[in-house]
């Protein structure tokens, strides 16, 4: 069941020039509902004059013990800038949990690789935790332009081996995520990916060729986030479907990306 409730900002940590991590909890202390990895929230941005619609943001992590959600926000425009500038104690009105979720492999022997590029790492942290809690051994592959773009490495390491690539080679291997040596050395049964579209297309092509199960999380532009406007559609083999309700997670077999 979707809800619209006020959260309070407990902390706002600047991770680098562009990215902030907000930790938020329901203002009235109600317990968070069941949330699945890959789901997202829609945030009303109170302090930005030019932001009319809510902004969709992935759920980066659910800390059940603290009853908090973590949101990783990249400042790319007025709405996200206002969120990054928000203050501890401020109220945020949020609609959540939205969207489908990543699906877990059918047995625990399956090896999983979680690939995140830039702020697209956001949903991978919670997915890693859920995989680990369910007896899987998640492994991560994080990419960025340079070292400072690769976020939350410490957090990821709590849940599995964390491989890193940067385009300039300033951290981990140099190059794109699809060129990382783990892909050559290790066989994975399922790959999860979120990040810039070119990265996801590259991963999808790789997985397709290797015949590996692959799920990607899309970030199409949204007006509502809960299936009412039909603005966020992705062309699939079933026709145009809403990313906000039938996604954001899609099995690459459903998409029309692979040439």
């Amino acid at each position, binding site marked *: 069941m979707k809800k619209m409730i006020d959260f309070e900002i407990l902390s706002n940590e600047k991770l680098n020039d562009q990215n902030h991590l907000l930790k938020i909890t329901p203002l009235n202390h109600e317990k968070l509902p069941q949330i699945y990895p890959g789901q997202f929230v829609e945030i*009303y941005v109170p302090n930005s004059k030019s932001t*009319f619609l*809510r902004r969709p943001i992935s759920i980066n992590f659910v800390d059940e013990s603290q009853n908090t959600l973590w949101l990783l926000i990249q400042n790319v425009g007025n709405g996200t800038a206002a969120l990054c500038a928000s203050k501890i104690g401020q109220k945020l009105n949020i609609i959540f949990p939205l969207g489908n979720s990543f699906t877990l492999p059918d047995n625990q022997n399956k090896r999983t690789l979680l690939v995140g590029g830039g702020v697209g790492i956001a949903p991978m942290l919670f997915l890693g935790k859920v995989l680990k809690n369910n007896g899987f051994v998640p492994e991560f592959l994080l990419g960025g332009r340079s070292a400072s773009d690769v976020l939350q490495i410490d957090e990821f390491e709590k849940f599995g081996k964390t491989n890193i690539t940067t385009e300039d080679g300033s951290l981990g291997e140099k190059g794109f995520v699809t060129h990382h040596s783990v892909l050559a050395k290790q066989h994975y049964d399922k790959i999860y990916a979120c990040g810039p579209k070119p990265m996801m297309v590259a991963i999808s092509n790789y997985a397709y060729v290797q015949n590996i199960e692959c799920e990607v999380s899309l970030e*199409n532009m949204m007006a509502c986030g*809960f299936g*009412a406007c*039909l*603005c*966020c559609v992705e062309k699939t083999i079933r026709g*145009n479907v809403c990313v906000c309700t039938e996604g954001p997670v899609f099995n690459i077999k459903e998409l029309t990306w692979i040439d």
Partner: protein
Amino acid sequence: MDRLKVKIGNLELKNPVMTASGTFGYGKEYADFIDLNRLGGIVVKGTTLEARQGNDYPRMAETPSGMLNAVGLQNKGADYFIDHLYPEICDYDTNIIVNVSGSTIDDYVRCAEKLVALDKIPAIELNISCPNVKEGGMSFGISPKAAAEVTKAVRSAYTKTLIVKLSPNVTDITEIARAVEAEGADSVSLVNTFLGMAIDAEKRKPVLSTITGGLSGPCIKPIALRMVWQVFHTVKIPVIGMGGISNWKDAIEFILAGSSAIQVGTYNFVDPTITMKILDGIESYLDRHHIQSINELIGNL
């Protein structure tokens, strides 16, 4: 609660707060957020005779206090509506109204013929004003002659309440309103979206796949309000007002301008509970101003 009752032709609404087509899905998208039974009416997504895939992505651009959309009437067609959606929603205690869209007069008529058989659909809203598909109806909405023709044809096929939804993209909206009234429309609703455009300066490309799209949201409110006021002073049939309503004050303004009922569109995306807040706000306005019935306010400027 009787003081909130309004009538649109033979159709009785328990209150004037309706939702606008294309912004409220089939109602159920909002069932987690509000009690749908409290609404005066729900106008479901534009329905065409045959299924449509709509336009390509991107279909949306945010604008100052509003948005452009180019959805293009994506829907599964009248038969799918009747077989699968109608059974799911027909038991809500509110008026479910189907927004009927088409490319030819024949499309409209055949779609209306199918819908007239549905017991719990007391009215249709004829969308002659969608700017987002070639031959998507807007051409009917911008000429009094074409608007009259399609209204006439549907009128003879549809015996229940017929609402005709007008396009604001015209020099004189009263002319169109008069034309559809003359052909037997029971009500006019206005406004549909304004034809607009967004450009990505960095990419030097239009933002929408269709180049132009329909503008909605608070930004259009002053123009919509003016049109409702003009149409109210032109026709005798009830007017349903919409265009940028985002709070109870806006709703009261549209009623004062001459709306017998109002529809809330885009703002449902920002606050899916807004219709309930508007309803509560109207009630306390009536209390505060000691008004016995909302009907006293309609057009009472």
